């Protein structure tokens, strides 16, 4: 490496001057002027080096690419070409070394080529980037002839077939878009190569070079477009230079970590609802969107011409209809038609006449091409006039671990995905097909997708704000009530499935019921599922993982089952609130905070399933908390004569229900139904409908006897199997043999195994059954008892000791055998 002392004077001077240039402006003010000045400084140094090398004739030094255009960002490559006439190859190599080595030693990034004009032509024919780099070429020093020759050859091929060149440029732009994404919405864009970036600006220059004159003269570029692209060029150059200065190295990928400093450098400050760093990225997006739109229009005007320009009715409705027609035909609207549309005057805020609305819905229904059309509507400023709320999300970056695009682009992406799901005739996910079949109102779903994040305007709480904004927007559109309501619901609940599925316990029945209550009906649930997928897939390539999908589907299936059975509906939440209020007002003398605590402790099914007066009767049994072996009971007359409603409250323990059943049998009471609730803090509230086994009237003595036996059994001072057996001995066996049947159903409920047991009726039959459950560690949540003459058929909703359904075959077989053995009664001998 050369020391400073050996460094040629022009290079030392260049380094000093570059340093001075860098210091002369703050980091955010190195725009195109600074880049041009940098190129001039390098020019001077190179010319001096070239001349001091005393070259022979027939050699030219040429600046290529960005440097050729006189544009050098702080860490741009200095691309050089030495064109020679092949007279003295050794001399040319020596010359190249004398120029390049000092620059490399000084740490400049210099790329170079040494070619004859013929070689230039061959390379340009082979490679598009060589062709464009040479089109930007600028002679710096030396003999004019070789470069004029080379340039004439390269430009000649391009001008001979400008259309082919334009096609090649457009294809290359698409390749760059696939590879680098877009500067107009990616949160970490590639400022140079990304779509809408600096390279796209250059496309216009190259096309002009191929056509041999300014694009305006060819009617391909409007003055306003030139202005917008110029502004974008300046802004993107400043941003790129600031990035180079901030990182101290080449590279045009503006990553999250660098954005705050660059925002400061460019003078962005925090505003309410828009942080400086978001302001920076929003500007980047906006400028890049202009570049994208203008370059696309220019190339389309050139390549497609005005031939297929369409007459468009000069109204908003006409414009939207034209867009919808092209989208339905799967075509992009030609720029020529777009130019006519741009000439149609539009009010700042477009009124939603029925015609405008229907045309807009048509456009939304036009699948992914419809989304493309919305992007164009956005580019020409029409979308924000239709949906003023769009302005707040347009080009707005979002910063979280998942999203990688601007909010408005994410919304259009979600809409596109919903359209794809709706139109997919054979989706990979069979649930999607079922969900699509359940959608009666696709407009509502599409609008929900389009608006789901409309509340993402910078401060927390985007869901609630979004619902409010959507209500307004949907109201203004004058939609039919069901469409409006579905869309509003989707905006308000778009995170419900995903958040619940990944963060909450799906074995919790109350939780599933809550979700079902919020969703309300199967169509909404189906729409929510489709939006959940569409939203995740629009978020990023990694958001809809099999992991997330599995959890969401489990929740989907459970909620669907609840809705299907009609257990809860849209009104459940409201009913619950009403219930709580009714219970509060029915307990006026109780301290309100005690009542609230009570309401929190009790399971949802209890609060909704029992009449208010029952709950208020039972309130004293539950407050204050009971002691370890304490049993509290309460009995009132039942609905039917001779029946009684009995409530038993005790600390929950395995087999409690069988103890109660046994104690009831011993006291001469038959169970008709049993409902079992467990509070959050482990207290069992068992509610029975009972009747006297022997007489209608149930004397106090029987209740006392029941309580006494139960307490003894709980305390371990009475053996119920023995006592029940003793009591049975006094009664005759049934006269007919009654077969025992046991049926185990795991399909009927998502949370319980339903076990139906049929057997001969006799004293303590429920005791026998529940005792068997307890032995096999099964928990009964609900029991329904029906008596048909000498036979009882009981249905039990049970779960295992882990709180899950019973699906262990061995356990089920054991249960069946045990129940049969215990319930089978040999008929009375001799009958």
């Amino acid at each position: 490496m050369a020391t400073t002392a050996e460094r040629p004077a022009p290079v030392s001077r260049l380094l000093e001057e570059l340093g001075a240039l860098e210091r002369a402006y703050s980091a955010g003010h190195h725009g195109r002027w600074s880049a041009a000045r940098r190129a001039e400084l390098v020019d001077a140094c190179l010319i001096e080096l070239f001349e001091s090398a005393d070259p022979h004739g027939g050699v030219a030094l040429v600046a290529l690419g960005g440097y050729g255009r006189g544009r050098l960002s702080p860490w741009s490559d200095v691309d050089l070409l030495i064109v020679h006439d092949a007279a003295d190859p050794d001399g040319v190599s020596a010359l190249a070394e004398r120029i390049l080595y000092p620059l490399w030693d000084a740490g400049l990034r210099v790329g170079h080529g040494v070619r004859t004009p013929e070689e230039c032509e061959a390379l340009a024919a082979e490679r598009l980037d060589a062709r464009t780099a040479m089109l930007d070429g600028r002679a710096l020093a030396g003999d004019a002839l070789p470069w004029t020759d080379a340039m004439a050859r390269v430009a000649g091929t391009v001008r001979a077939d400008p259309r082919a060149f334009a096609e090649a440029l457009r294809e290359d732009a698409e390749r760059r878009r696939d590879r680098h994404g877009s500067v107009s919405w990616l949160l970490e864009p590639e400022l140079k190569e990304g779509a809408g970036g600096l390279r796209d600006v250059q496309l216009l220059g190259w096309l002009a070079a191929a056509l041999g004159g300014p694009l305006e003269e060819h009617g391909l570029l409007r003055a306003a477009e030139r202005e917008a692209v110029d502004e974008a060029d300046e802004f993107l150059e400043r941003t790129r230079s600031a990035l180079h200065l901030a990182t101290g190295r080449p590279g045009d990928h503006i990553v999250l970590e660098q954005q705050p400093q660059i925002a400061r450098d460019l003078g962005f400050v925090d505003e309410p609802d828009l942080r400086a760093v978001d302001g920076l990225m929003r500007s980047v997006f906006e400028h890049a969107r202009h570049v994208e739109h203008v370059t696309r229009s220019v190339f389309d005007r050139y390549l497609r011409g005005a031939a297929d320009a369409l007459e468009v009715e000069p109204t908003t409705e006409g414009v939207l209809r034209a867009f919808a027609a092209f989208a339905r035909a799967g075509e992009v609207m030609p720029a020529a038609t777009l130019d006519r549309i741009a000439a149609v005057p539009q009010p700042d805020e477009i009124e939603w006449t029925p015609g405008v609305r229907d045309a807009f819905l048509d456009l939304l229904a036009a699948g992914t091409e419809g989304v493309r059309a919305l992007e164009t509507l956005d580019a020409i400023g029409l979308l924000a006039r239709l949906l003023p709320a769009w302005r707040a999300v347009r080009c707005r970056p979002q910063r979280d671990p998942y999203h990688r695009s601007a909010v408005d682009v994410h919304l259009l992406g979600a809409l596109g995905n919903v359209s794809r799901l709706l139109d997919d005739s054979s989706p990979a996910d069979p649930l999607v097909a079922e969900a699509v079949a359940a959608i009666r109102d696709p407009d509502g779903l599409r609008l929900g997708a389009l608006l789901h994040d409309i509340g993402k305007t910078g401060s927390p709480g985007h869901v609630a704000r979004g619902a409010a904004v959507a209500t307004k927007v949907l109201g203004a559109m004058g939609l039919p009530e069901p469409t409006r309501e579905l869309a509003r619901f989707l905006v308000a609940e778009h995170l419900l499935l995903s958040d619940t599925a990944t963060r909450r316990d799906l074995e919790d029945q109350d939780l599933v019921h809550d979700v079902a209550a919020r969703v309300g009906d199967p169509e909404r649930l189906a729409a929510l599922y489709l939006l959940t997928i569409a939203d995740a897939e629009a978020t990023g390539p990694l958001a809809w993982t099999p992991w997330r999908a599995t959890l969401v589907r489990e929740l989907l299936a459970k909620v669907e089952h609840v809705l299907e059975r009609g257990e809860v509906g849209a009104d459940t939440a409201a009913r619950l609130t009403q219930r709580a209020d009714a219970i509060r007002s029915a307990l006026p003398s109780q301290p309100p905070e005690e009542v609230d605590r009570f309401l929190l402790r009790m399971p949802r099914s209890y609060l909704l399933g029992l009449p208010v007066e029952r709950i208020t009767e039972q309130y004293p049994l539950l407050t204050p908390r009971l002691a370890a072996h304490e049993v509290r009971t309460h009995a009132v007359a039942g609905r039917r004569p001779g029946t009684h409603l009995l409530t038993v409250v005790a600390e929950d323990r395995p087999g409690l229900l069988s103890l109660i059943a046994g104690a009831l049998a011993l006291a001469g009471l038959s169970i008709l139904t049993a409902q079992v609730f467990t509070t959050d803090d482990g207290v069992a509230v068992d509610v029975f409908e009972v009747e006297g086994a022997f007489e209608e009237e149930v004397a106090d003595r029987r209740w006392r006897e029941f309580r006494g036996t139960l307490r003894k059994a709980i305390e371990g001072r009475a053996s119920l199997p023995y006592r029940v057996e003793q009591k049975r001995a006094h009664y005759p066996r049934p006269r007919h043999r009654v077969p025992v049947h046991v049926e185990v159903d795991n399909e009927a409920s998502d949370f319980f195994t339903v076990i139906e047991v049929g057997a001969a009726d006799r004293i303590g039959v429920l005791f026998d059954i529940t005792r068997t459950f307890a032995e096999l560690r099964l928990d009964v949540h609900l029991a329904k008892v029906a008596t048909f003459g000498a036979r009882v058929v009981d249905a039990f909703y049970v779960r295992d000791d882990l709180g899950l359904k019973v699906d262990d075959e061995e356990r089920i077989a054991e249960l069946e055998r045990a129940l049969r053995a215990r319930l089978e009664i040999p008929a009375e001998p001799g009958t």
Partner: protein
Amino acid sequence: MKLVVAVVKPHRLDEVKEALRGVGVNGLTTSDVEGFGRQRGHTEVYRGAEYQVDFVPKVKVEVLCEDDETQGIVDAIAKAARTGKIGDGKIWVTSVEQVVRIRTGEMGPDAL
């Protein structure tokens, strides 16, 4: 040094995080994982469409710690992740030979 690895139910992750913070853990790594143990896959039905779930979604939590912190961390995770139902997951501990903090180059316990 030890690596404590826990596979827990997704909905217990917040509790586990809190519990680990409670015992002074400052850093951990989580990942979404799928698998099965004694809790096998199952079949779900939605509107008549049946689909098989072969692997159950879980969250894997990894914590690097000093030897004497291991038990406290294991206990904290076990307590926070427990629901008492099948599928609560597992915790295992392995020895770690070396740890490097990439930014500073610190090694061993200094890098924890």
